[in-house]
C-alpha cells in the first residue's frame, strides 16, 4: 500500500505540474462557458439561463474529457519513460494503471469542483437546493471517464491513438447529447440519436438535479457510472501489458 500511495502522490503532483492540463480544465473550460453563455444568451429566456445551461453541460463535457487527462498521465512520452521504472519495481502492474486512474480522477474532480465554486456565484448558476448532490454525482462520472482513458490506452497501447479516438467519441456523444446546443426539434433521426447518447442521460440527471431539485436520475446515473468504472478497471487488468512501456 505504501508503494501505491507513493506512486499515486507522484502521478497526482505530476498532473498539477502540467500547465496545459491545468489550464484546459480551468481557464479554458471557464472561458468556454463565459463565451458560449454570452453568445447564446439571446437563445434563452435570459442570459442567466444560458450561463446555467453551458456551465452544467460544459462541466459534463469537461468531466468526460477527463479520459484524455488519464491517457496523458498514463502514456505521455516523457512520463512513459519514467513509468518504466515503476514497472521494473516490485510495485506491480496494478499500481501503475490504478494510481494513474485515481490521480486523474482526483485531479479532474478537484479542478471541476473548483471551477463550479468560482463560476456559480459569479454567473448565478444553481446546482440545486443542495449542491452536495451535484458534486457527489460528479464523482462516479469523473472516475468512469478516467477509467475509460486508461482502458483505451491498455487496449490500443498508444497515447496518440487513444487521444484521437477518445476526443472524436466524446465530441460526437456530447454533440448528440446536446452539450453545445439543443438538438430538440431537429428531426426524428437526430432525436433518436440523442436518446441513445449516454451524454443525454447525464445532462438529464445533472439538469434535473440543478434546475428542478429532482433526484429522479441521481441513483441510476450514480450506480451506472460506478458499475462502468469497476468494469473498465477490470478491463484494464485484462489488457494491461508491461511490454507496452518498452
Amino acid at each position, binding site marked *: 500500500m*505504501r*508503494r501505491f500511495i*507513493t*506512486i499515486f502522490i*507522484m502521478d497526482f503532483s*505530476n498532473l498539477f*505540474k502540467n500547465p496545459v492540463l491545468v489550464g484546459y480544465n480551468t481557464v479554458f473550460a471557464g472561458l468556454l462557458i463565459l463565451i458560449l453563455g454570452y453568445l447564446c444568451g439571446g437563445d434563452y429566456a435570459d442570459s442567466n439561463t444560458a450561463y446555467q445551461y453551458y456551465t452544467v453541460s460544459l462541466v459534463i463535457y469537461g468531466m468526460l474529457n477527463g479520459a484524455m487527462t488519464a491517457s496523458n498521465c498514463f502514456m505521455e512520452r*516523457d*512520463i512513459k*519513460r*519514467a513509468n*518504466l*521504472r*515503476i*514497472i*521494473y*519495481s*516490485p*510495485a*506491480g502492474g496494478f499500481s501503475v494503471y490504478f494510481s494513474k486512474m485515481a490521480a486523474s480522477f482526483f485531479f479532474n474532480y478537484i479542478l471541476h469542483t473548483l471551477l463550479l465554486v468560482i463560476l456559480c456565484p459569479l454567473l448565478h448558476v444553481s446546482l440545486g437546493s443542495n449542491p452536495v448532490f451535484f458534486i457527489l454525482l460528479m464523482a462516479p462520472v469523473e472516475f468512469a471517464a478516467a477509467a475509460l482513458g486508461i482502458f483505451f490506452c491498455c487496449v490500443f497501447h498508444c497515447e496518440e491513438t487513444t487521444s484521437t479516438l477518445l476526443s472524436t467519441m466524446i465530441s460526437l456523444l456530447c454533440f448528440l447529447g446536446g452539450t453545445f446546443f439543443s438538438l430538440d426539434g431537429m428531426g426524428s433521426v437526430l432525436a433518436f440519436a440523442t436518446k441513445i447518447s449516454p451524454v443525454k442521460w447525464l445532462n438529464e440527471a445533472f439538469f434535473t438535479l440543478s434546475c428542478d431539485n429532482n433526484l429522479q436520475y441521481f441513483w441510476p446515473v450514480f450506480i451506472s457510472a460506478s458499475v462502468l468504472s469497476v468494469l473498465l478497471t477490470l478491463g484494464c487488468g485484462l489488457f494491461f501489458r*508491461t*511490454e507496452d*512501456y*518498452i
Partner: protein
Amino acid sequence: MDNLMSVSNLKKSFKDNIVLKGISFEIRRGEVLCFLGPNGAGKSTTINILTAVLGSDEGEICFKGDKISKKLRNYKQSIGIVPQDIALYEELSAERNLRFFASLYGLYGTRLDDAVEEALIFAGLQDRRKDKVKTFSGGMKRRLNIACAIAHHPELVIMDEPTVGIDPQSRNHILASIKKLQNQGMTVIYTTHYMEEVEVISSRIIIMDHGTILAEGTKESLKEDIQNEKRYIIEVEENGTIGHDEFFAVEGVKSVKIDGNTFEITSLKGIENLDRIISLLSDHGEKIRNITSEAASLETVFLKLTGRKLRD
C-alpha cells in the same frame, strides 16, 4: 564464483520474426557479464525478458535457484535496471527522483535518506541535488539514470547500453562506477556496442547474433581462440584480376576476404608469409597503398564469429 542466475532455452518471437532461438547462459555472482552484438542480435530482447517486463515464449529463468515467475516480487526487489533511454522525471530534482524510485523498493526513513545520499555521491551529483533533471547535461542524466537503479542496493544490476551518446569524461566515470559496484559485490549484466568498454569492465562476455549465442567466455579465452592467427588488411590502388585461390597458394593463408580494393587475409601465426603475399600482389601489377597487421582483439573475435564489425 557460484551462479546467481541461470537462463535456459530462452525463445522469443514477434509474429513471424524469431528474435531468440533458444539461448542458455549463466550469470555468476559478482561478475560483470557483457553482452556484445550488433543491432538485431537479440540483446535487448534478452534484457527485457530478464527484467521481467517482457515474457518469453519458451525457456526458464532461475534467480538463486528459484524460477523468477514464481517469486517475481522478490526477484524485482533484488534487481536494479538501467534502461537504454533516460527514465527520469525531468521536472523533478535529482534528489526527488532518487527518493521516489528508491522508495518503490521499500526504503523509507533514515534508510531512504542514506540510500539517496550514497546514490548522489555515486553519481557525483551532490552539488546538483536540488536542480531539476531537465537542466542536466546528457552525461549527468546518464549517471543519475544509473544511480536510480542502484540506490536500493540490488544484488543484480542490468544495464542496457547505459553510455549511449555521452561525452568521454562521463563514460569513464560510469565505467569506473561499474567497477566500483563490482567491488562492492554487485553482479552486473551490461550490453553495449562499444568494444573498448567491454575490454575495460567485463569479467565474461557473451557474443550474440541473430538470436543465438555465438561465443561465451572471458576476453582472454575468446582471444585465445584466434591467438594463433594474424590478420593483414592490404589496400591497393586498383584491384585487377587477383582472386581468392591465388592467396590460398601462399603457405599459412587461412581465409581471404576481398572487398573492392581491400584484401583481408587471415594467416597462421608463426609462418612469415607477408613478403610472399606482397610479391603475389606485385606480380599481378597491384600497387599497394597501405598494409595493416592486426593482433587479436575483441573486434577481431567478433569479426571472425559474425563476419561483420560490431557497428556495421
